[in-house]
């Protein structure tokens, strides 16, 4: 089947209609604002109404409904008490997802921050800074799904004797080892997915930390250098304390992103071989198995886990400026 340009027309027409309808609403609002001196309250209401309506219908009410659904059975109509929460902490698959999420959140933020920090320290004052940082940021632009494909290929397996096509097994074979099915053997396969996540996140850390390192006043480091401090001492005693607010922001941001990680697991293993995480398990329960109550309960768990990190993050970001 080849690409059928005519078949695309209804989509583009729908796109035009959607944008035109939106433009009409926006014009009405602006027109009302222009018509003479509208009272302050009326003007505010006019400007806020679309956003408030969408937030209510799209986040607030659905969020409350998910909370209610987490206390119902698979169909979402019959009250089930705390069954779903009990299930979450007793079922093998759910427990594996909880364990894996814990491993992700404990490992991904520190690992990507350390890589990002080392890299940032090396390139922050170099002429090639922009280029060097771009190299590390590229994985972020190619999406988690793309990153999943990249790493699935790195971990590709061919039996002993056959030519390896995956980079990791090629390295193992080159050093005289036996090729392994990296993504199948549990629990180490979780670590190999975590490597893929760190790969997508380190650039973010490097960019923000390089910015912070450049913001450290040169007088401070120069004065220390004149006093005979080595560059290692300067980094530990002056640079690190100065960029601490940014370090915190980076770590928290990555923890939040890691809790919600879904795409990499979905793309690389589909949650098989005990590699599931909460966000992925939630998707499977709610949308593949039709277990509405369990899916909702996992969503609530995710919300409860993320909330303290986000609250902390908003505060930390204000301090980091």
């Amino acid at each position: 089947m080849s690409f059928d340009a005519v078949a695309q027309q209804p989509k583009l027409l729908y796109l035009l209609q959607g944008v035109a309808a939106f433009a009409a609403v926006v014009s009405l609002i602006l027109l009302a604002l222009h018509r003479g001196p509208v009272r302050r309250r009326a003007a505010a209401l006019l400007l806020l109404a679309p956003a408030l309506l969408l937030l209510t219908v799209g986040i607030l009410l659905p969020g409350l409904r998910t909370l209610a659904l987490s206390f119902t059975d698979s169909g979402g109509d019959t009250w089930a008490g705390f069954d779903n929460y009990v299930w979450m902490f007793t079922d093998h698959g759910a427990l594996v997802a909880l364990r894996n999420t814990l491993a992700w959140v404990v490992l991904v933020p520190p690992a990507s921050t350390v890589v990002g920090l080392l890299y940032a320290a090396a390139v922050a004052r170099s002429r090639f800074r922009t280029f060097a940082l771009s190299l590390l940021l590229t994985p972020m632009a190619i999406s988690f799904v793309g990153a999943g494909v990249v790493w699935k290929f790195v971990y590709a397996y061919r039996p002993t004797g056959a030519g390896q096509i995956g980079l990791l097994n090629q390295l193992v074979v080159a050093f005289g080892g036996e090729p392994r099915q990296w993504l199948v053997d549990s629990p180490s396969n979780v670590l190999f997915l975590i490597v893929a996540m760190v790969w997508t996140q380190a650039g973010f850390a490097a960019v923000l930390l390089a910015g912070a390192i450049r913001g450290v006043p040169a007088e401070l480091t120069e004065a220390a250098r004149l006093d005979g401090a080595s560059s290692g001492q300067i980094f530990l005693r002056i640079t690190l304390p100065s960029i601490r607010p940014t370090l915190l922001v980076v770590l928290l941001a990555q923890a939040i992103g890691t809790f919600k990680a879904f795409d990499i697991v979905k793309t690389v293993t589909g949650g098989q071989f005990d590699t599931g995480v909460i966000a992925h398990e939630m998707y499977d329960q709610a949308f593949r198995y039709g277990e509405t109550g369990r899916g909702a309960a996992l969503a609530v768990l995710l919300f409860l886990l993320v909330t303290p990190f986000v609250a902390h993050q908003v505060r930390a970001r204000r301090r980091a400026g």
Partner: protein
Amino acid sequence: MNGVRERLASRALTSVAVVIAILWTTPTLGLLLSSLRPEEEIKTTGWWTVFGAPHLTLDNYGEVLSGGANGSGRLAEHFVNSVVITLPSVLFPLVLAFFAAYALAWIDFRGRDALVVGIFALQVVPLQMALVPLLKLFSQGWLFLPAWHLTGPARFGQVWFAHTVFALPFAVFLLHNFLASLPRDLIEAARVDGASHGTLLLRIVLPLARPALVGFAVIQFVWVWNDLLVALTLSGGTAETAPMTVRLASLAGTYGNEWQRLTAGAFVAALLPLLVFFALRRHFARGLLAGSVKG
């Protein structure tokens, strides 16, 4: 003595950075080279052998875009879907959040502070908290809200809605912080001259807010283009409406060994975000921080 040790330390750090750079680019390079190799070779030999006997072709790209006997290509259709999904999903929240942020920053009314806190607080709600009820709402209606009963291309509307809604809290947060920091004198002077809120909004605040608006647009573009979760749950999953990420993820699952399609497909999907990324790198980095708690 000290100088020697200093130079060694600095050289060690540089080597670490070079090693990191190599580790971070090699996997992508391998995928890129593979996407240019004939199917037979991808499946039998490693991409590193290409340096010995270069034999490159664009066949995989043609195949994945529109070829494939079993309909396993067709990425061109999904590319159109990605475009149709992304444009409104960037435009709608951009405009609505700008309106809301302006009202919250520059119009004095009772209850404003509570509203600011309330909207900001919605940033903590993960996408997962809303997906099931949204799907139910679209198909069955809920409370006083009617069902949408969308079919065919109209399903794009569901995706636009979800992306718009989930961008709003952080977009309002980002734009409000920016607008509130604009010089008060400027706005007051225009008010005294009798400018209405409409004039102020369009003629004075809009041009000043450009950097923040571009920053949001860039990060929202990359976010929506690369999204998988909303697309999987709300786009319907068919070639008619699903974006490229859905197609690619399903290729990775169903045709896990069809590397000729996967490798080329990954780069087709990454093309636009990479272009945007390299053209607007500065905004991208700034937007990343702003969007780090989103969805």
